[in-house]
């Protein structure tokens, strides 16, 4: 039982990262960026490709990271930049196009099978009584929370961070106040790509498997985690991610693996009906999002 809680928290740490990426994209840009699961997958898959080609793991991770960041910038150019003046569903559709594109390109070269990700870091296990904690898992939990904390500090304290928050309030006013929107928006995409890629690599290392479609399930759970924690709240993303991880592991443990979707999405549906702003979200954030031209309405 205690072991299950640990496993749930470790799994949740990957959802935390994806939830943060979604929360940045929606909270700041009002844009549900469907290419995020694709960037997550690129992190894991590109690293796997390079490692099996014989590239040293550290270098492979670095290249995979840069590839995902580069792709995030391409997505920005061809989706969000064109959003200005067009309907709101347009970037949604084209970011989905990118998700399909990334998946299909890797599918063509490497097939749709699950690939075994080699053990690249020394995986010691820490034993506390009956509990077993893998060092890789612990690393991913610590890293996730550190990254989320870092993003939070960055948004709160730096000049660029303040600019980003001003854009989240009102893009036009932010522009009047001298914030270079055209430079800040790519930066947000860059952060999204970077964090999603780290998530993909951590997932690959922890669960020792990658596939071109590895992003989809994790992406959907990440979106759910964001909503449950509260959209736009960075700490909500942590709470939501860990809660989803726990729910998933517990329902496998008590009810069987076929019940995972019922419990996870049941939780999401209940939260949406009972408390749409999420556990940590402010009602105010929700109002703002609703007023500023509903993101997804056509």
């Amino acid at each position: 039982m205690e072991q299950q809680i640990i496993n749930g928290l470790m799994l949740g740490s990957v959802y935390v990262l994806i939830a943060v990426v979604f929360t940045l994209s929606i909270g700041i840009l009002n844009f549900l960026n469907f290419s995020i699961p694709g960037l997550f997958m690129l992190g894991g898959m590109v690293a796997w490709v390079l490692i099996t080609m014989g590239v040293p793991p550290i270098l492979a991770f670095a290249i995979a990271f840069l590839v995902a960041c580069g792709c995030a910038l391409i997505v920005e150019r061809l989706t969000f930049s064109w959003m200005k003046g067009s309907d709101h569903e347009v970037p949604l559709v084209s970011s989905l196009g990118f998700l399909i594109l990334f998946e299909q390109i890797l599918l063509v070269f490497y097939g749709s099978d699950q690939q075994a990700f080699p053990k690249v870091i020394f995986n010691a296990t820490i034993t506390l009584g009956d509990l077993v904690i893998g060092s890789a898992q612990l690393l991913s939990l610590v890293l996730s929370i550190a990254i989320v904390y870092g993003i939070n500090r960055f948004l709160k304290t730096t000049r660029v961070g303040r600019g980003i928050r001003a854009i989240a309030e009102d893009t036009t006013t932010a522009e009047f106040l001298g914030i270079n929107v055209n430079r800040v928006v790519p930066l947000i995409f860059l952060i999204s790509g970077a964090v999603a890629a780290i998530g993909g690599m951590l997932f690959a290392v922890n669960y020792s498997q990658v596939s071109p479609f590895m992003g989809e399930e994790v992406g959907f759970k990440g979106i759910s985690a964001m909503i449950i924690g509260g959209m736009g709240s960075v700490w909500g993303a942590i709470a939501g991610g860990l809660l989803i991880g726990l729910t998933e592991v517990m329902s496998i443990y008590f009810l069987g693996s076929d019940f995972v979707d019922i419990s996870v999405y049941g939780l999401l549906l209940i939260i949406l009906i009972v408390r749409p702003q999420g556990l940590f979200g402010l009602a105010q954030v929700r109002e703002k999002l609703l007023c500023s031209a509903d993101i997804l309405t056509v």
Partner: protein
Amino acid sequence: MFSGYIDGLIVILAINVIMAYSAALPLVAGQLNLGTAGFMAVGAYVAAYFSNEYGLPIGVAILIGSMVSGFIALLIGIPVLRTSGIYLALATFALGQILVAVFLNLEIVGAAQGYPVYGYIEMPTIAITTIVLVLALFVLSQTRFWLYLTAIKNDPTVCDLFGIEVKNVQLAAFVLGGMLAAVAGGLQAHYLSYVEAQSFGALVSIYTVLFVILGGTQTVLGPLVGAAFFTFLPEVFRSGEEWRYAIFAAFIIGFMVLRPQGMVTANMMRRIKNPFGSGRKASA
């Protein structure tokens, strides 16, 4: 009638067209339904169950499936439609996932093993049903109901002020969409002779919305064109074999850059109807 390949393609087209309208109905009123695959699953399973276990005619079984799906949409639509925007989209998404997961665990319809269907319907029946449904939707698009939907999309507050029951109209669009998706599911189940919960994944719902947006929501023709396009384009790229879906995705991205309002727009329809007048005059 035709070769098996053409037959199969027509059926896929028919199913995609019905699904496109099931997503388009709420979307015309500005609500994104990302759970259509769930309603499709309800229709498929319920219709298959009634034609298998009770020996009902397939048409009646599909009708029952559609009713059950509409009832579920009504029950869940009432709390879910309190939300809007991205919250509504994700609530419908969660709903779709849950519906499919329930069938995955339901022993009386085979759970994860899938459910064989004994009744069979031919391609022409499916094609004719689809044509009838599309014609009915074209008629519906001439009524006040459709006008209410577009009005609500443009400004729900003003609609409310003018005495339109915004929530009820939205609920009606959502329920009708759920019923249509169930018909598509029932038809598909009896054509493939097999129902499998895994085939109603989230991506089915997402692709359905893609048909509609690519086709355009300004006119009633848009979803039809979008669905047809989505069905045939990957076939056109067949020569590219394994690359065809990648080419297809690149095409979507390029298309949205060049023509974000969708393929069929209201203005274009006016120009077709009245090639010599200006678009604006003809709109009256």
